[in-house]
């Protein structure tokens, strides 16, 4: 990871290409860690759980496209958000060498230039990011209902304004939450759509929220609700909430 950050600095502040051998060595390491994982591609691109990659006459643009976009309807995901830019460049170059391309392009403007990068967070924001999606907190984590930085479920609309403090976060007004009544049972809801096919809403009674699709007209809404945002963030203390707010401010700017 440290090495990846150093390479990121090298790639932005200094200049590509750096030593090709170093890039290929890193590519081999990324491949071993992220691609040759037993149930996926084989060791050094040999046969495994996913197709062989060695000696397939792939060109570098093709490899770059597949790595960054994935292959639809297969186990091959897009790695665009899963690897850093230098890792992507390195692994594409490495796979190119498996296909007879002795000197793959690793510089700006080459096949690597289309690669997106993953934002790097540090300090309090990084801590906040970890807390936001902290799996140890189960359904009590923020990402149960919010999607930020391609992590989480977008139950709530995207966060546009970040409260200045934990106190204000706890007092957050949630005018979108209504009361829905169906079959005599009332529940806090977020209405998504009302149409001829049905009414779609989130039931916020418990976490995780459940997206319901009911017959048109079978649910009645009133504008008020007893639901409070403070009731679903109890897995965090004030210091943790402050770190999360720092993260959100940084993430929204990115």
């Amino acid at each position: 990871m440290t090495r990846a950050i150093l390479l990121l600095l090298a790639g932005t502040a200094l200049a590509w290409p750096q030593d090709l051998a170093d890039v290929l060595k890193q590519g081999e390491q990324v491949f071993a860690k992220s691609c040759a994982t037993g149930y996926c591609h084989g060791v050094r691109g040999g046969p495994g759980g996913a197709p062989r990659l060695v000696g397939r006459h792939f060109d570098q643009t093709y490899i770059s496209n597949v790595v960054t976009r994935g292959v639809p309807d297969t186990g091959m995901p897009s790695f665009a958000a899963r690897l850093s830019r230098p890792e992507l460049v390195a692994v594409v170059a490495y796979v190119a060498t498996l296909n007879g391309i002795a000197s793959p392009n690793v510089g700006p403007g080459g096949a690597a230039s289309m690669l997106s990068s993953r934002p790097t967070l540090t300090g309090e924001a990084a801590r906040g990011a970890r807390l936001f999606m902290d799996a140890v907190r189960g359904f009590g984590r923020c990402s149960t209902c919010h999607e930020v930085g391609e992590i989480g479920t977008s139950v709530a609309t995207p966060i546009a304004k970040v409260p200045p403090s934990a106190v204000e976060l706890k007092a957050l007004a949630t005018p979108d939450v209504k009361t829905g009544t169906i079959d005599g049972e009332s529940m806090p809801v977020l209405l998504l759509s009302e149409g001829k096919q049905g009414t779609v809403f989130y039931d916020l009674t418990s976490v995780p929220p459940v997206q319901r699709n009911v017959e048109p007209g079978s649910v009645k809404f009133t504008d008020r609700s007893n639901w409070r945002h403070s009731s679903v963030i109890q897995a965090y203390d004030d210091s943790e909430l402050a770190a999360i707010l720092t993260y959100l401010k940084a993430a929204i700017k990115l």
Partner: protein
Amino acid sequence: MMVSMRFSLFLFTISSALAQDAGATRADWPHYGGTHFSWRYSALDQINTANVKAITPVWMFQTGDYADNLQATPIVVDGVMYLITARARVFALDAATGREIWRYQYPDPPRSVPGFVGNRGVAVGDGKVFFGTKDDSMVALDQRSGRLLWRVNLDDARQCGCNITAAPLVVKDKVIVGGTGGDGAHRGYITALNTKNGRLAWRWYVIPGPGEKGHETWKGDSWIFGGGSPWLTGSFDPGLNLVYWGTGNAAADFYDGDRVAAGADKSKDVNLYTASVVALDADTGKLRWHYQEVPDDLWDYDSAYEVLLIDREFRGRMRQALVHMNKSGLTSVLDRGTGEFLGSFSVPEVRNWISGVTEDGKLVGRNEPKLGQTISICPSAAGAKSWNSMAYSPRTGFLYVPANEICNDITPNNRGPEEGRNYMNAEFPVKLPAGRTTYSHVDAWDPVTGKRAWSMPYKYLLLASMLATAGDLVFTGNPEGEFFALDAKTGNKLWRYQTGAGNRGSAVSYAVNGRQYIATPTGWHVSVVGAMAQSLFPDQDWRLGSTLVVFALPENSR
């Protein structure tokens, strides 16, 4: 149930007949494993050893989804079949004709969602059809119309590296499901939702958190990413109100330096509750008992496979037992009320990961991968058996097991975890064991004596589930596309049919208007163990597809 148990002490045949009632399917095939007892056994005997030669295809259904294997177990209720494909396209079909009644297509998750494309079945109950998805949603459809009723997201695949590929299990008013991801840095769990409204009923984490019993079996913070994902479908005993599930291996798979304290006693209970069979209270999800089959697993030997609930006499005493195979092929027989060890047997013919097992089930002579070395281990991480289920016939008393003979060369490493990313910590290319010409076999095992009654060898690998019937037949298929019937008593092949594509699904039997049907999913694909198998036999070209083929006796011959 208890009454039959008491009688059984005096009259084995009666209790045996009653036990048959509990585990056998009849006209319907209501659950993934047939019944909640997971025998994959049908009491129908219209098709039997005398007439199986006459069965013929009566209808086929092409799903049109060729993204991966058709692996699902079809569910049949009241003459309607519910079938799901790899990409979560769900069909309701007239089970007598194949006519489509409704279909539902789950939106394809974005390409940034990692994981393999695949789905092993729906569950049906409370007037709904339930299934899990690649992007970790649980979905409920209206059973009559296919209309979406509710959907709830249980995790973020982009973070956890986990997916839902298993069929859910409906237990009373809950639908229960596990997930994948235990070969990555992830903490596995089983989740139960209320069938009515999708609200969370309970969640049980395989790895105990701080302050919970069993947490002390993990070194430092390793419990957070310790794996254990229960990626298949469990069983349920309504009399005991217990749900049984098998859990996945500990992560990192092949290196334990970060999760096991140096000098730990590996004779029992290391890295709980990975590689274990667990009994959970069906209402609360609370752990009642556990049995760890591989303490400190170092070979990627999951215990995630099916749990068969059988009542048999052991050492003169009738027992409510369960049978469960670990991926190593080591198969445990336990008292399902208490978890007491009753016996075990090992299925693969080529084995070197241990030298043996003591009478009380302890592993002897562990042959562990070590940093800086490459060792050849049999069976491989692909399993002495893969996820495809065994079957049990109460008529013969045998378990019918599809077993594979593969080894792998394990070179471990000590890379640290990154959440949701691969955390196997080894290269482990598979290879065929030397000195053999056949690499798999269908076996009949007696769970009481632990002896193999017969074995039918096969050249390649067997990756389709078994179906046993009261016609004393055992059905399964092979990668070459042949679907076949064996005599349950002898293993003799009585019938075969070339379906045209590799078999990797789970056949079922059911009846509509008094006619018995045998239905099998067909269609190979090159993902995960399927591709490992293919890499072992590079001259083979097992054909892709996604077709359900349904057989019956001709109308005029019944």
